[in-house]
C-alpha cells in the first residue's frame, strides 16, 4: 500500500478544497504510516477511524473535528495505545506542533472572516421572557411555539435553531395574542374577590359522587376535612372569569395532630394534562393561611389537597372499606386530614391600569382618541426596545407605512396591533446577530442579558450601550453583578441547569413503583429545587466550582433529608430557623457524608437512570461530558447495547465485563467506567444502595421500605391487600461493587475515594464549566482558536479560588464573549 503518496495527494487536494488560507505541507506522513496506519487504515479501521482516507480539509467541519481528536489523543499519550511501541518524543512533538499551528490558523481565519458565532434566533424561553419584559404578558406562550433543537447540549446554539414556516406562523399568531392580552382599551376590569367557606354541599359534588367518595372527607361545622388526594375540588369555585393573575388564599388546619403537607394545583380541573403544581406547603394543627399568586386561563380552577397522610390511617381505613363504606364515619374519624376552613380567590389582578405593557408602548395616550402622531411617537419609543438598539428614521417610516395601510380599514389600536405584530416577526427582533469582530455596545447588551437573564436588555443596559459605556471593564463588571442579583437571573439558572444537568428530563421516567415505592411527587418537586438552589448558592456566594463535585453543605427540605438519611443535620438547622418542612434550607453536612455536590443529588441520579435500572456506561458518559468536560464519542456502529436484567441473578457490571474487555472498546471505557462504577452506589432515585433491588418474587432476601407518602385511592379500594400496608418488602439482589480504576491507574474502592481522586484537579471542573458556559453564553461551542483564551480564563479563575461568579466575570471579560 502506497499510503505515503496517497497522503501527499490528499494534502495537495486539501490545498484546493480549503477556501481558507492554504494548509502548507509539512505533516509527517511517515509518522502516521509508522505509528497509526496499522490500526487506522481502510481495512482495520479501529474505532471507525481510517486515517488513510481522512482528508486534512480544515474547511470541512467534520474532518477538522476528527483531526483535532487525533491531535488531542496523541497529545494526551492515549495514542498510539500504551502497549504499542512509543514513537520518538521529538517526532511526536514535531507532529503536534505542525498540526496545532494549522488548526490554529484555520480556526482563527474562519473566525476573522465569519465571526465565532453565527446569527441565531431567540429560543422559546428567551422569546417568552422577552415578551414578558417588553409587554408584561402573564400567559406562558411557549407551548404554542415549535420545540427548539439543541446543539452541543444547548438550545442557544444557532445551528440547532432553525426557522421554518411553522415558526413564522406561530410568531405571527403569538404576537397577536400577546398584544391582545396587554393592549386593552377602556376602564380597568374589576377584580372579583370571592370568599368561599368550605362546607360539604351536595350541590357542589353531585349524588353519584356522594355515594362513591363520601368516605374521603369529613363534614365539620367550620370546615371540610379531606382525608386524601381523591377530591381536590374547592367548594363553590367555578373557575377564573377571565385569563389573568389571581391571588389565592386558603385557611386550613391539620386534622388529627401532626402538621399536614398539601399540594396547591392550578389549571383545567377536568384535564390532568393541562394542570400544574403551583406549590407544596404545609398546615399546622393550629391552622394557617397560605397565599399564592398564579396565572389562570379562563375557566381554570385551583385545587388543594393534603398529601402524605395515608400512612397512619391506612390499616384502619382498609378495615372500614372492607366492611362497607357505610361502616366508616368520616365525621368522627380522627385523621390525619386537612380541615379546610375557607378559600379566597381574587382577580384578575392588574399591576396597574392601563397595563404596564400598554404604558410602555403608548405612554399615557388615550387609545380611544389616539392619532397617527401618537402612532409615530409609539414606534419611535418602542421599536428600540423591540430591536434592542437605536432605530433609524427609515425603519420608523417602514413601520408607519404598515400602520397607514392597516389604518385604512381599522381603528388606531387595530392598526397598531398589526404594526407591532410585524415588528415582533421582524428578523431584527427574532435574531441575535452582529458582524464579525468586536461586539458594539448594543450587541453586547443583548448578549449579556440573554446570557444572565435569558431575556431582553432593560432600560439601564440599553442606556449604557447608547452612551457607549457598557464595554468599559468597570462598568461591565458592575452590570454583571447587577444582572446576577436581579430576580430575572432565575431565567439563567432554570435554562442553564435545565440543560447542563438535564433537569428538564426530571419527569421523563417514572421510577418502578415496585422497586422504588418510596418515590413520590414531593421528592420529585424537591430534588429539582435542590439542584437549582444549590447552583444559586454556589453562584451568589462565588463558591468554588469544586462544590459541584463535593460540598460541605446541601440544600434540603424534610423530604430530601429523609431520602438522604440526613434528618439529624436537617432537623438541627430547621429548629434554628423554624421554617416549614417543604422549604429548602442550606444544611451543613456531617463529616464523611456521601452527599454534597451534584453527582450525589437525586435529580442528577434520576435523570441519568431509566426508572428501573441505572447503567454505569450512561452515567459515566454523562459525568465525562457534564462534570469533566470531556465528551465521549458515541459507540462505533453495530455495538449492541447491554440488555438490562433485573431478575436479580446478574449485575450490570458482570454483563458489561465482556464488552469492556474487548480491545476496541477498552479505550473509551477506561475513561467512562470509573465515574459510572463509582455512581453504582446510588440507585435510580438517588438513594444510597449496598445491594441492588431485585424484582423476582422468588428472591428470599428482603428489606422493608416505606411506601410513598401519597397513594391513589381507586387502586386502594380495588386491591387493599396489596396496596394497604405502608411498608413494601423489596427483594435484595447482588451486592453493589462501586470500585474501579482511574484512567491514571489509581484504584478506588467506591464513590468517596473516586470523588477524592477527582478533586485533585480543580482546574478540570473550571475548564469544563467554561466550555459549557461559553457554549451557552455565546451560542457557539469552543473552537480550536479559542483554546488559548480558555486557558487564560482558567488561569485567572485559579487565582480566585475557582469561584463560579468569578468564572462568569472572566468569561464575560474574555475576547470569546466580547467578539461575535
Amino acid at each position, binding site marked *: 500500500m502506497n499510503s505515503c503518496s496517497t497522503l501527499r495527494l490528499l494534502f495537495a487536494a486539501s490545498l484546493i478544497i480549503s477556501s481558507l488560507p492554504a494548509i502548507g505541507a509539512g505533516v509527517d506522513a511517515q509518522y502516521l504510516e509508522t505509528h497509526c496506519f496499522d490500526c487506522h487504515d481502510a481495512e482495520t479501521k479501529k474505532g471507525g477511524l481510517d486515517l488513510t482516507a481522512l482528508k486534512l480539509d480544515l474547511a470541512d467541519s467534520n474532518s477538522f473535528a476528527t483531526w483535532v481528536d487525533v491531535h488531542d489523543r496523541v497529545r494526551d499519550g492515549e495514542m498510539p495505545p500504551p502497549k504499542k511501541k512509543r514513537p520518538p518524543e521529538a517526532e511526536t512533538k514535531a507532529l503536534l506542533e505542525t498540526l496545532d499551528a494549522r488548526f490554529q490558523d484555520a480556526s482563527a481565519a474562519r473566525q476573522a472572516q465569519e465571526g465565532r458565532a453565527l446569527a441565531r434566533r431567540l429560543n422559546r424561553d428567551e422569546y417568552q421572557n422577552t415578551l414578558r419584559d417588553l409587554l408584561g404578558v402573564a400567559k406562558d406562550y411557549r407551548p404554542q411555539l415549535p420545540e427548539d433543537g439543541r446543539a452541543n447540549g444547548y438550545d442557544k446554539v444557532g445551528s440547532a435553531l*432553525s426557522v*421554518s414556516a411553522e415558526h413564522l406562523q406561530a410568531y405571527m399568531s403569538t404576537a397577536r395574542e400577546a398584544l391582545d392580552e396587554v393592549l386593552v382599551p377602556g376602564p380597568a376590569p374589576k377584580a372579583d374577590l370571592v370568599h368561599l367557606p368550605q362546607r360539604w354541599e351536595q350541590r357542589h359534588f353531585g349524588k353519584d359522587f356522594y355515594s362513591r367518595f363520601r368516605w374521603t372527607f369529613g363534614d365539620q361545622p367550620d370546615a371540610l376535612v379531606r382525608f386524601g388526594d381523591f377530591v381536590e375540588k374547592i367548594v363553590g369555585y367555578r373557575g377564573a372569569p377571565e385569563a389573568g393573575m389571581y391571588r389565592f388564599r386558603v385557611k386550613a388546619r391539620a386534622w388529627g395532630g401532626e402538621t399536614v403537607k398539601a399540594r396547591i394545583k392550578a389549571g383545567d380541573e377536568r384535564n390532568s394534562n393541562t394542570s400544574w403544581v403551583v406549590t407544596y406547603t404545609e398546615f399546622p394543627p393550629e391552622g394557617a393561611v397560605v397565599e399564592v399568586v398564579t396565572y389562570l386561563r379562563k375557566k381554570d380552577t385551583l385545587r388543594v389537597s393534603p398529601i402524605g397522610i395515608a400512612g397512619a390511617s391506612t390499616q384502619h381505613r382498609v378495615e372500614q372499606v372492607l366492611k362497607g363504606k357505610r361502616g366508616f364515619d368520616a365525621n368522627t374519624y380522627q385523621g390525619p386530614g386537612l380541615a379546610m376552613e375557607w378559600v379566597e380567590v381574587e382577580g384578575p389582578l392588574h399591576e396597574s391600569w392601563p397595563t404596564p405593557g400598554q404604558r410602555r408602548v403608548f405612554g399615557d395616550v388615550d387609545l380611544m382618541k389616539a392619532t397617527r402622531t401618537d402612532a409615530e411617537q409609539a414606534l419611535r419609543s418602542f421599536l428600540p426596545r423591540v430591536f434592542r438598539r437605536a432605530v433609524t428614521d427609515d425603519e420608523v417610516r417602514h413601520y408607519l407605512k404598515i400602520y397607514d395601510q392597516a389604518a385604512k380599514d381599522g381603528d388606531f389600536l387595530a392598526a397598531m396591533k398589526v404594526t407591532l405584530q*410585524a415588528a415582533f416577526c421582524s428578523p431584527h427582533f427574532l435574531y441575535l446577530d452582529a458582524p464579525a469582530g468586536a461586539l458594539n455596545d448594543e450587541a453586547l447588551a443583548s448578549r449579556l442579558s440573554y446570557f444572565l437573564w435569558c431575556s431582553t436588555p432593560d432600560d439601564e443596559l440599553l442606556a449604557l450601550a447608547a452612551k457607549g459605556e457598557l464595554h468599559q471593564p468597570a462598568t461591565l463588571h458592575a452590570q454583571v453583578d447587577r444582572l446576577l442579583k436581579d430576580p430575572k437571573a432565575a431565567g439563567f439558572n432554570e435554562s442553564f441547569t435545565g440543560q447542563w444537568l438535564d433537569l428538564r428530563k426530571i419527569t421523563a421516567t417514572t421510577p418502578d413503583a415496585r422497586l422504588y415505592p418510596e418515590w413520590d411527587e414531593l421528592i420529585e418537586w424537591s430534588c429539582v429545587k435542590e439542584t437549582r438552589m444549590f447552583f444559586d448558592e454556589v453562584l451568589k456566594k462565588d463558591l468554588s466550582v469544586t462544590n459541584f463535585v463535593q460540598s460541605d453543605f446541601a440544600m434540603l427540605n424534610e423530604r430530601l433529608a429523609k431520602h438522604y438519611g440526613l434528618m439529624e443535620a436537617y432537623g438541627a438547622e430547621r429548629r434554628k430557623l423554624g421554617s416549614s418542612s417543604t422549604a429548602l434550607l442550606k444544611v451543613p453536612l456531617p463529616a464523611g457524608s456521601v452527599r454534597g455536590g451534584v453527582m450525589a443529588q437525586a435529580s442528577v441520579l434520576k435523570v441519568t437512570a431509566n*426508572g428501573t435500572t441505572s447503567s454505569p456506561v450512561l452515567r459515566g458518559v454523562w459525568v465525562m461530558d457534564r462534570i469533566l468536560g470531556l465528551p465521549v464519542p458515541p459507540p462505533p456502529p453495530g455495538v449492541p447495547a447491554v440488555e438490562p436484567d*433485573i431478575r436479580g441473578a446478574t449485575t450490570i457490571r458482570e454483563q458489561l465485563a465482556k464488552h469492556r474487555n474487548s480491545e476496541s472498546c477498552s479505550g473509551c471505557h477506561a475513561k467512562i467506567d470509573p465515574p459510572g462504577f463509582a455512581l453504582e452506589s446510588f440507585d435510580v432515585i438517588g438513594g444510597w444502595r449496598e445491594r441492588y433491588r431485585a424484582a423476582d418474587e422468588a428472591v428470599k432476601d428482603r428489606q422493608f421500605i416505606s411506601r410513598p407518602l401519597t397513594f391513589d385511592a381507586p*387502586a386502594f379500594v380495588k386491591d387493599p391487600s396489596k396496596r394497604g400496608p405502608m411498608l413494601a418488602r423489596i427483594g435484595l439482589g447482588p451486592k453493589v461493587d462501586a470500585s474501579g480504576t482511574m484512567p491514571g491507574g489509581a484504584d478506588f474502592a467506591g464513590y468517596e475515594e473516586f470523588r477524592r481522586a477527582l478533586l485533585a484537579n480543580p482546574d478540570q471542573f473550571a475548564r469544563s464549566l467554561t466550555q459549557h458556559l461559553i457554549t451557552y453564553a455565546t451560542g457557539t461551542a469552543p473552537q480550536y482558536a479559542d483554546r488559548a483564551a480558555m486557558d487564560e480564563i482558567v488561569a485567572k479563575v485559579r487565582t480566585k479560588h475557582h469561584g463560579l461568579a468569578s468564572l462568569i466575570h472572566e468569561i464575560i471579560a474574555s475576547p470569546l464573549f466580547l467578539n461575535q
Partner: protein
Amino acid sequence: MNTPHLPTAALSRRAFLRSTGVGLSLPFLEAMLPRFARGADAAPPRRMVLINKALGLHAPDFFPERAGHDFELSPYLKLFAALRGDFTVFSGLSHPEAGGGHSSEASFLTAAPHAGTPAFRNTISLDQLIAEQIGAQTRHPFLAFGSHSGSLSWTRNGVQIPPDKDPATVFRRLFIAGTPDEVREQERQLRDGHSILDSVREETAALQRRVGSGDRDRLDQYFTAVRDVEKRLQTAESWSHKPKPQVQAPPPGEYPDASDIVGRMSMMLDLAALALQTDSTRLITFAIDVDGGVPPIEGVKESRHNLSHHGQDPAKIEQLRRIELAELQSLNAFLTKLKSTGEPGSPLLDHTQVLFGSNLGNASSHDTRNLPVLLFGGGFKHGQHLAFDRTNNTPLSNLFVSMLQGFGIEAEKFGASNGTLAGLNQA
C-alpha cells in the same frame, strides 16, 4: 389536480350511506363524483398514513419465525388475521446509525443518522417530501397528529412540525364551518398576514445584503419560511369560501388522560379515518409517544415506559403484552374501517398505504435495530413476511423508496437507501 366537489352525485349520498351501513356521512368520496369529473381512467387519489409507536413492540410476540407467504401469525399478528392479504410484515429493517435510543423517534420518518448526538441535524420526513411534490390538492396538505408532545413530520431544514394533539380542535378545523364572526376574524388574519409578510420579506432582504455568508444561510431559512407561509395563506384563502365536508360523526369528546395511550390512539385514528374518507387530506402522520402514567388496562399496574424497561421480568412483560395488544387492536379497528369503506370492490385501504412501526427494536436496551414494521394496503402485493438479515439490517429507507414509488412519485433514493425494498411489489 384538484378533485372538484360537484353537487350532482353519481351515487347519491343517501344511497351510499344506506349501503355502507355505517353511521358516517361520506359525501366527498371519489366514488360519488360523476365519472367525467375524475376522468374515465384516472386512478383514485393515493393516500398515506405513517404511524410510529415509540417504545417498540415486544419482539418475541411480534416477529413471525417463517419468512415468505406461508409465515405463521405471531401472537400479535393474529389480531390482523382477517387482513392477512392486506399487509406485509418486515423483519431485519432499521435506519443505519440511527442511534440515540428514544431520540431516534425524530428520525423514524427522516432516516437522519445519529439522533441525540450534539451534531444531530434532522432532515425532511417522508410525508413532507410527498407534500412538497403533490402540493395543496386538499384543504389540508397534510396532518401531523401526536398523542403527546411530538410529531413525526420534519421540514427540510430539520424543524419538527408541531403536532395536532387536540382532537376537538382538529375536528372543528376539518368539519365545522366558522360563525360569521370567526370567518370575519379569519379574513382579517389573512389580510394582516400579507402585510406582515411583506414587511418581514423586505427587512430580511435588506439584512441579507449586509451579513456574512454563514448568517446569510440562516436568513435564507427565514426567507423560505416567509415564502412558505405566503403559500399557506393563499391555500387557506382558496379554500375559505368552499364549504367544509359534513360528517354525521359526533365531535370527539375530551381527549383521554395522558396515561390512556390506547384511548388517545383510537380517538386520533377515528379522526384520521374521517379525514381520509372526506378527502380532507391525503397525508397523515401520527406519533404515539412516551406516556405519562399507568394505562387504564386490566391487569396493568405500571406505566408503559417503565414496562418497556422490563429487564426480563416476566411479570412486567405480561403487562407490556396487554398494553401492546390493546394498541394493536386499536390499529386493527382503524384498518378495518378503511377496508370497509370506499368504492365497491375498491376499498379505501387499497389506495392508502398505512405504515405502522417503531423507532426501537428493543426498548429495554434502547436498541434501534431490527425494528418492528408493518405495511398495510396501498396497492402492494401483500400477505407475506419479508425477512432481512437480523445482524446486517437492510435500510428502512429502502421501504420508504418503495412507498414513494407506490405513491406515484419518481424517487430513486431516500435517506440511506440503497434501492427499493426487494420483494415488495405493486399489485
